């Protein structure tokens, strides 16, 4: 059974279609990156998965059941959501003790978890005085309390400094090496590229790509982009678009043709009788592919 299964999920907020007929699954024992630009619907999907938000239609299940029907939710899934909040007047240890008590988890786990996320020395401090990084660690500690098989993290690197990001990556890799299933969202593919095995990419609430990160990287290598400079970029753009090429006019007047090989671009240039000042292939990064996937199909994503 799939640890996480999203089926035909749709969520409407009034006129806003936040999630649109989304389906994907997350395989066991792998780290899956859940990617999409701001407003793509990542947080909404994760909140539905965790039973916090009710879907308009469709379903999201964990080990085949809705989150609310799990026998031991805290021992099955650990979650760190965006803007995880704490009572500012409460000490870190008390925050965890409350959750452990409610989940029927022993007090010794609280100390172990504080140790694991590096908060043991701050356990008696009130959370109101915590830095963003410390709050993220405390949120992760809460998620790890029940030693869950499945971890769901919504943009866990938000607000972390480079040191914190490195720490978190190490933590994720360690959790994965323990055989846990991890679903981690981000709006930057490059940020999770080194950590994840698979990616699920969404835009405007819809699935645009799903598969092993290696496949997406191959796609990056196979997708060419060619930069052109011409005396009249606007005119050249029109001519090349008429030849069915995807052409973007950059701010500095350069034209970038994507999704076509250099020979195809060269032939189109000749056919249109254009004068060239410069023509060269661009190296395409993973991030470029991500941007392509998430912007060109649906127009604006914001």
């Amino acid at each position, binding site marked *: 059974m799939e640890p996480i299964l999203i089926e035909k999920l749709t969520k409407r907020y009034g006129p806003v279609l936040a999630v649109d007929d989304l389906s994907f699954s997350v395989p066991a024992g792998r780290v899956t990156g859940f990617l999409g630009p701001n407003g793509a619907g990542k947080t909404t999907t994760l*909140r539905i998965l*965790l*039973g*916090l*938000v*009710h879907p308009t239609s469709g379903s999201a299940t964990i080990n085949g059941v809705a*989150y*609310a029907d*799990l026998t031991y*939710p*805290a021992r099955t*899934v650990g*979650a760190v*959501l965006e*803007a*995880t*909040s*704490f*009572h*500012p*007047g*409460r*000490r870190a240890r*008390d*925050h965890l*003790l*409350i*959750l452990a*008590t*409610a*989940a*029927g988890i022993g007090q010794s786990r609280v100390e172990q978890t504080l140790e694991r996320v590096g908060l043991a020395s701050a356990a008696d401090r009130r959370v109101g005085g915590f830095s963003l990084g410390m709050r993220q660690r405390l949120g992760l500690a*809460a998620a790890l309390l029940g030693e869950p098989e499945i971890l769901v993290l919504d943009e866990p690197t938000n607000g972390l400094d480079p040191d914190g990001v490195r720490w978190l990556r190490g933590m994720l890799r360690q959790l994965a090496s323990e055989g846990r299933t991890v679903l981690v969202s981000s709006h930057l593919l490059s940020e999770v590229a080194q950590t994840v095995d698979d990616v699920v990419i969404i835009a405007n609430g819809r699935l645009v790509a799903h598969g092993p990160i290696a496949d997406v990287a191959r796609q990056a290598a196979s997708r060419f982009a060619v930069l052109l400079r011409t005396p009249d970029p606007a005119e050249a753009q029109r001519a090349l678009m008429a030849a069915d090429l995807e052409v973007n006019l950059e701010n500095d007047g350069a034209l970038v043709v994507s999704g076509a090989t250099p020979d195809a671009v060269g032939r189109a240039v000749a056919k249109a009788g254009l004068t060239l000042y410069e023509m060269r292939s661009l190296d395409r990064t993973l991030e470029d592919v991500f941007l392509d996937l998430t912007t060109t199909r649906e127009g604006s994503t914001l």
Partner: protein
Amino acid sequence: MNALLRAEARKMLTTRSTILVAGFALLYPVLSVLPAVFARNEPAVDESSILEVLRGGADVLTLIVLVLGILAVAGEHRHGTIVPTLLVSPRRGRFVAAKLASQAALGATLAVAASAVGLITGTVYLASRDVSVDLLSGDVLLTASAVALVVTLYAFMGAAVGALVKNQTAAVAGALIWVLTVENAIPLVLRNPGLKRWMPGGLSDRLLQAADPFAGTGNAWLALAMLTGVAVLLAGVAFVRTETADVH
């Protein structure tokens, strides 16, 4: 459910504002009610003054537990702790039930403790004026029970209102405006002064007067039934609202 109740108890004990307010609730009978009651009745203090002490304490205590109940639920939304809470306990009905039960228990505990403080200090004071009080008399027990019931119901209603309104500031302001002004204003506006007896504040007063021979206990039973009805109704709406709402 047991685990949730213990978790709620831990939340109360680790929230400084709750502890401070609860402490104030216990000191209030000594600081304010006692001097006021005895100043009003001087020089004719008698055994029945002790009942006034009990009732006087209940007035402020109902407001305090009402607000504590609201803060206990709406505060979870305000600070966002509702998310970890619901992740551990995703069955919303159980979450609301735990809140209602734990706040009612807090209300009952504070009512008993505040009544004890009022009775002890009141008895000592009256003894110094050569008035002896039988703490186990029917009237004292009846009035103390009424105080405990009213305060418990208000604590319960506070939790229900907190679950209903969620916006902490709006819930607290709304509840206080209702108790302090709307209940008095409605009978005036409708030119029907008798209406006041049928609103929560009026019902509580009737319950607190259970030991008054002119009011009668039948009257008090009816008031208890109606006040409980209001509390159950609020809780019912709170259950439905919480079940269907999205949590952000």
